[in-house]
């Protein structure tokens, strides 16, 4: 199984462990990841907050590069990048926008690449495979947190249900875990305000953490580096604003699966978290 791979900036820096765990489980599951050559940043929230054309051009270059490389399907683990790429692909169906962007890029772009997130990759290529390869069932009660960018806007992403999505829960069940039914699956963690408005991030992430902890989750499972860093790195700030400070860890779905597949915690980057992971 071969598939294109766009890690994005976070995965090479502050969310290295996400990258490490994706690569680690891909290896075990025989998924060959081909990184896009000379990829650039997708522009994230900053670009589309500041300039529409910029926000389309950056993802368009990434996809143009992938096309050039002959890739047909690209997995994008970072939910923010996934969202930007999908939305840009959608926006560029508009003839005038596409014209303008190819003018800027001076690269051919035809928008034919299938962009999928990591959950879709695991569903598509792994569910049965994973089940067969589980060596240490992930016997924990966890809260699956999807955030915004993985499921919205539904009309464009067409992934899972808008409210109360299930795909991550299904994967956790495959590796032997149980998931709680909770209320903040798709509520925003504060996203791009991580640095600029830490106070708001603490409030929003706090609500999420509190609900999960109240309902007895042993860990939060995520698929987005922004959510992870807000919920993990900002734990100090969060614990100042919530009533009952919490020390439940926040781990990536790929890490959870990795553990079940018997991959070493260090290889999965579990030592890189701020909140200690003891699962």
């Amino acid at each position, binding site marked *: 199984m071969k598939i294109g791979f766009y890690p994005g*900036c*976070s995965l*090479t*820096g*502050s*969310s*290295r462990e996400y990258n490490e765990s994706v690569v680690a489980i891909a290896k075990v599951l025989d998924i060959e990841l081909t990184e896009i050559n*000379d*990829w*650039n*940043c997708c*522009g*994230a*929230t*900053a*670009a*589309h*907050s*500041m*300039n*529409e*054309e*910029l926000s389309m*051009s*950056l993802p368009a*270059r990434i996809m143009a590069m992938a096309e050039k490389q002959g890739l047909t399907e690209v997995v994008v683990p970072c939910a923010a990048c996934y969202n930007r790429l999908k939305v840009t692909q959608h926006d560029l169906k508009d003839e005038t926008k596409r014209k303008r962007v190819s*003018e*800027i*890029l*001076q*690269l051919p772009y035809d928008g034919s690449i299938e962009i999928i997130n990591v959950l879709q990759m695991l569903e598509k290529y792994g569910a049965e495979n994973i089940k067969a390869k589980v060596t240490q069932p992930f016997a924990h009660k966890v809260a699956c947190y999807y955030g*915004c960018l993985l499921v*919205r*806007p*539904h*009309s464009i992403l067409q992934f899972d249900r*808008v*409210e109360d999505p299930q795909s991550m829960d299904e994967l956790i069940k495959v590796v032997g875990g149980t998931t709680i039914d909770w209320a903040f699956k*798709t*509520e*925003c963690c*504060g*996203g*791009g*305000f991580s*640095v*600029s*408005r*830490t106070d*708001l991030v603490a409030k*929003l992430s706090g*609500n999420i953490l509190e609900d999960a902890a109240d309902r007895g989750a042993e860990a939060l499972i995520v698929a987005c580096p922004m959510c992870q860093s807000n919920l993990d*790195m900002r734990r*100090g700030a969060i614990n100042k604003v919530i009533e009952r400070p919490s020390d439940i860890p926040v781990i990536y779905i790929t890490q959870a699966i990795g553990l079940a597949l018997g991959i070493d915690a260090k290889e999965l980057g579990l*030592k*890189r*978290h*701020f909140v200690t992971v003891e699962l």
Partner: protein
Amino acid sequence: MEHKGKITDLQSHTGVEVMRCYQCGKCTAGCVLATDMNFPPSYVMRLLQTGTKENYIKILGSNSIWLCLNCENCLGRCPMEIDIPKMMDYLRTQAIKENILHPDSKPIISFHRSFLDSIKYTGRLYELGLIAEFKARTFRVTQDLTIAPAMFLKGKLHLLPEKIKDRMTMKRIFAKTIENVKTENK
């Protein structure tokens, strides 16, 4: 008439027809930051519906457009499928263009600018550089004093930026988009 024109511009850029909103308030009810905003989303819609210049300027000068996280809960639930996040994106660029900026926008814009600067030169995000530049722009020297070293220790920060090869294209993208707008203004 000038501000009616603004509404038309808004529609042609974002496809948002402000008159479709019938003020049910569902966007506001579900907005995670509505309470921190000068005007919650449904109120912003109403201000736009009035079509007056005063109200348009009120919106550009409010923190609402800057606090919007584009989490899209509002769009997902709006019975009339009004793309409020897209509208917020547009209003932000208009606020910058017209230089009507709420104080709350400063750190947010600074962050965005630092972010974009970082990728403009290297093609990828240089997180250490981003934090440094952000601090310099906002004079928040002490913020995250403990986090950054911890990140470094956990291997989460690179000391040197990663650079892509084709930096010419990156330069061109910036020159033809965001910088193009700036020169137009001048």
